[in-house]
């Protein structure tokens, strides 16, 4: 009887408070709050954009071709119009969906695969680890343009294949980083301590090594998001990118490239959207990094009263 009460009560208590506490801690970091708000907008745009503005954003109107940012043509044109006279603001909203799907899945895919392989390679210093590393070597030295062409020829172009190409080419960075970190972390005494307690390999990796390694990988991943968005745009010139009338922010940047001298805004705003997204993710990741690290968490907690 006593056991029942004493175990269930605290668990509930900590759970409730931890959510509130997280929000509380989030509020302490105003940059992270801004980042979360921006990401919410992006996610909403990705979810709703195509339904709300799908038509409007694709309507070609050569009268407003390359219109400069202003209110002259209505609110949709505040950021200007692209080379086909389409409102850039609305296109940013609509393009968010493809962009996010593409970038997030490519990054997550490569991160999961790369990290998993990296853990194996770092943890098992045997032939398997060696094989994984040599595969990474091969991936790193395989020209990505050629890979893209091959996929284009062997498979049909489409968003799934873009994701595939991007994911494959980005695997090595996670793999090698994860491995390097694992090599170091697994020598730490607390890992050894868990090992001799009888912890399974899985547990060692998941409970002890992963939390120490993840922050670096997440930092890289948030920056990779931007990189992948841009890489996609350079694939589109091969025809491997996403095909019009579908588009992404990366494709918008690429299309604006030829107007840099005359209509800078065509490439500028989607570039800004990409940068801001990456930046928000990174700020959020930095926040998570602080919160999830007990040694660092005070940086957020201690902010409320200002001492000294």
């Amino acid at each position, binding site marked *: 009887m006593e056991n029942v009460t004493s175990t269930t009560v605290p668990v509930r208590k900590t759970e409730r408070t931890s959510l509130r506490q997280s929000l509380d801690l989030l509020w302490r970091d105003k940059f992270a709050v801004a980042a979360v708000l921006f990401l919410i907008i992006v996610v909403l745009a990705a979810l709703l954009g195509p339904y709300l503005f799908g038509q409007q954003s694709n309507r070609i109107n050569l009268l407003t*071709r390359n219109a400069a940012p202003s209110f002259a043509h209505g609110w949709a044109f505040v950021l200007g119009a692209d080379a086909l006279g389409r409102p850039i603001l609305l296109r940013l909203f609509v393009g968010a969906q493809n962009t996010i799907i593409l970038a997030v899945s490519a990054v997550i895919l490569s991160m999961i695969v790369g990290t998993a392989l990296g853990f194996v390679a770092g943890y098992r210093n045997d032939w398997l680890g060696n094989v994984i590393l040599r595969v990474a070597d091969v991936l790193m030295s395989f020209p990505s343009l050629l890979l893209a062409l091959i996929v284009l020829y062997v498979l049909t172009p489409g968003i799934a294949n873009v994701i595939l190409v991007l994911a494959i080419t980005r695997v090595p960075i996670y793999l090698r980083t994860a491995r390097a970190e694992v090599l170091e972390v697994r020598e730490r005494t607390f890992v050894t301590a868990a090992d001799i307690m009888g912890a399974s390999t899985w547990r060692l990796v998941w409970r002890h090594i992963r939390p120490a390694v993840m922050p670096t990988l997440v930092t890289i991943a948030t920056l990779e998001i931007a990189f992948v968005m841009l890489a996609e745009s350079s694939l589109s010139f091969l*025809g491997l990118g996403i095909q*019009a009338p579908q588009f992404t922010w990366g494709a918008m940047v690429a299309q604006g490239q*030829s107007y840099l001298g005359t209509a800078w805004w065509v490439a500028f705003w989607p570039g800004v959207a990409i940068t801001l997204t990456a930046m928000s993710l990174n700020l959020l990741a930095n926040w998570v990094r602080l919160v999830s690290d007990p040694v660092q968490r005070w940086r957020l907690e201690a902010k409320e009263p200002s001492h000294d």
Partner: protein
Amino acid sequence: QDKSKDITIVMPSAVDVVEPCHMMSTGYIGLVLRQNVVESLIKLDPKDSTPQPLLAESWKQIDPLTWRINLRKNVKFQDGASFNSAGVKAAIDRLFAPALLCRDKDRLFAGQTLEVKPVDDLTLDIISKQPMPLMPLTLSQIGITSPNTPTTEASKHPVGTGPYVLTSWNPTQSLVLKQFDGYWGKKPQIQQATYVWRSEPALRASMVAVGEADIAMQIAPQDAVNPDTDFGYLNADTSRVRIFMDQAPLNDVRVRKALNLAIDRGSFVGTILSKGVLPASQYMMSNINGYNPDLKVWPYDAEEATRLVEEARAAGVPVDKPIVMYGSDFMLANSNELFETLIQSWQQIGLNVKLEMVDKIQLSATRHKPFPTNRPTPTMVFETHDNAAGDAFYTMMVYYHSSGDLSNIADPALDKLLEKGSTSTGDERRKAFQEANLKIQQDIIPDVMLFHLESFIRVGPRVSYAPDFTTQGKLELADVTFK
């Protein structure tokens, strides 16, 4: 040394081959070599494509199969070899050397072989198996190379009779032409020309703006904003969307009409494309012999187009079937925008056209025979074609005759007309081709004819140069002068 007489020309892509017999069909070789390093026997007047003497002083057809050429005196090759009928024979024979795989050969001789017979030192006969009424035009495309040029491999050091010698060529960086002291004709002003290549149009324009280059080829229309330095010219390229008529709904003439009527060609001019582009009614420019001046550009009539589509639908044509249009974006500036607008115009009249961007190889493979016997989807392909040789023959036989390598039409009546045109001369020839063009546009409608395209060149303040439609294929340094 004195650099004030040297110029730099910046080009969009590398001169990766300098073999004169690839001049017509590959990259920018012609632009560099033609009439600068290697000269032809005959040259064309840019205004009306009439043949003019160059290395040949005169020529005449002495029987249906034989042309007699009289060569210019006192001409020397740059390597010291003397220019005479034997040299010309060697140069022409070289085109047929099997190991050379001359890429222009097909285009120039359509499977024929020529026999060259020197009559005396400066006279020679060129004999063909079938009549070649266009011999002077053909000869205007052939660069006469020194007899010492190897015939077993592509030349890396072309030597001709022109006013410039190729002094250095590094395919990854630059190519330099220097004035040839022993040139037979008038000395041009330019001492030395350095060709470099940058793929980015804006960068090419900037290089002239800051004085790193004097002439920038192919700058983007949107960067051509300074009327003092930037010149547009019709570049002989004509663009169209070819319709493969083997499948429903594209095998229905109403649908093909609708495809044409749906495009508001006028709205592209001065917007996505530059001001100087001309909506086209046929696949050649007006200075080509055989052009039909009576043909009108398709009007824009979206309502009529929609009606036609509906009519076809009512008649059981599967107009909703997805149609693929292949495009590739190396073909012209702002091609993406052009494609997107086309696609949307067609979608608005109720046709389900989709864009598929492919790379060069795929595009090229789609365009020529053998065609697939059953395509997965109804297909169209965007293509451009330039006819700088002056006669409709070079376009019509290839694209519209049932035997043409790029033709997907098999219309006996049209074939007849084209055959008649290609074997006759003068008015009869012109009439036949004009009639064929009429038939193509009115009855067959195998394509959505689009525009005669414009290119832009930026010329720096030191020099003057006036581009014309031949500028795509040659840039005579002799035409460049210092201000």
